[in-house]
């Protein structure tokens, strides 16, 4: 499975839940605005990233998951 993350700095309020929960994926700048460190984190990060997205008070984090195509 591939995880693709997008963040919307314009929506970010600087609440900091993402950097607190998953600092290896999210960071914040000096003003508290989200900085995405890893756009396609390993699938074992999915539960943590999902929680960060749910805790974000202004829905600034989106997650897209795609199953790898096994047959080709």
């Amino acid at each position, binding site marked *: 499975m591939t995880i693709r993350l997008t963040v919307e700095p314009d929506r970010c*309020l600087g*609440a*900091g839940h993402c950097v*607190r929960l998953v600092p290896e994926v999210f960071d914040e700048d000096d*003003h*508290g605005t989200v900085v995405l460190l890893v756009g396609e984190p390993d699938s074992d990060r999915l539960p943590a990233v999902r929680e960060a997205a*749910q805790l974000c008070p202004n*829905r600034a984090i989106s997650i897209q998951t795609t199953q790898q195509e096994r047959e080709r």
Partner: protein
Amino acid sequence: MSGTVTTEHIEQLPELPMERKCPYHPPAGYRDLRERGAVTRASLYDGTPVWVVSGYSAVRTILASPHTTVDVRHPNMPIPVPGMASLRQSGSPTIEALLRTDPPEHSRQRRAVLSSLTYKKISALEPEITRRTDVYLDRMLATSPPVDLLDVFAKPLVAEILGRLLGVPEADIEHFQTLTYKRFNPIRSMTGYLIHLLTDGRDELREGQLRELAGRVAEGELSTEEAASLGLALVLAGQDITVNTLGLSVLTLLDEGTQLDLLRAEPERWPDAVEELLRYLSLTGGTVRVATADLEVDGQLIRAGEGMVLLIPAANRDADRFERPDELDVRRSSRGHLTFGFGIHQCIGQHLGRLELTIALRALFERIPGLRLAVPVEQVPVKQGVVFGLGRLPVRW
């Protein structure tokens, strides 16, 4: 007269505010309200009918909705307790900064104070908060019990950290503490002091929030009054509720010996325990909104212009979101609780609150293993109000 209004007159609506009888639990009537529906009707102390929202998902949805206002001057803004009625008339920007402003004004004000309250800036304060906590514990241990834990520990500690965050001059810390919690009504004297620091006293400021605000004033982004009102908003929102959450957490943990034993054996659980205490105690009251567009929440239609009271303590005890909601369980993950709110008005000082509670509670119970109440729990005086709290917390060791 419309049919709805007639029905409300015939059927007695539940009345708000409700009192908290047991210090650990939200008013018992909140459960009855939630059983009537996550979104239902109630009447305020003055008889005004309002929407009352008590389900977790419904409260979260409304807090996140852009179609609401927090403007206290809106004629339909619910006034949850009589004392708040004066806010509407005052029109004072002092009380309305940040908490009572809508975007785009709110976004500008939030940005002006956020940079000293970000997760990383607050995390960096850990050594300082630990050091100050130890100072007050040393002082407390040098006295003879019983003492009022709020007076000797919680209030001065929380006020000192706030003063340091603001960058109050070292020599003024005691004066700042006096203004913060020893005055019956701190608004006027604290505002005057903050204006002094932002103008004549500017050169004495240490690095911190006020120096940043003074910079924004110099650049014409904010007026001095607005900068002072933002500083005041941080003090008003940061002092009482933190002190009371700390005091009630101590009371709760002393009563829940098994949970305390668990934390003593596995101190790495303290951050989760604080999160659970925030959910369980849930002192946030008085959260009100008016819809600015028709909203459909939990099958109810809330029309544009109608007032809503959001019962965050009830939402935090919603069994659809938290298993065994009325049990304190420091091992659970309570991170989704709504004690700090949600949406654009989510508490800007939440990381500071969490860190202070974690450091202070852990240090208190580790350094004073024999800590206990000095009076039976029923005799601990409580204060009802927008923020529920303790009058005193007499302890010995």
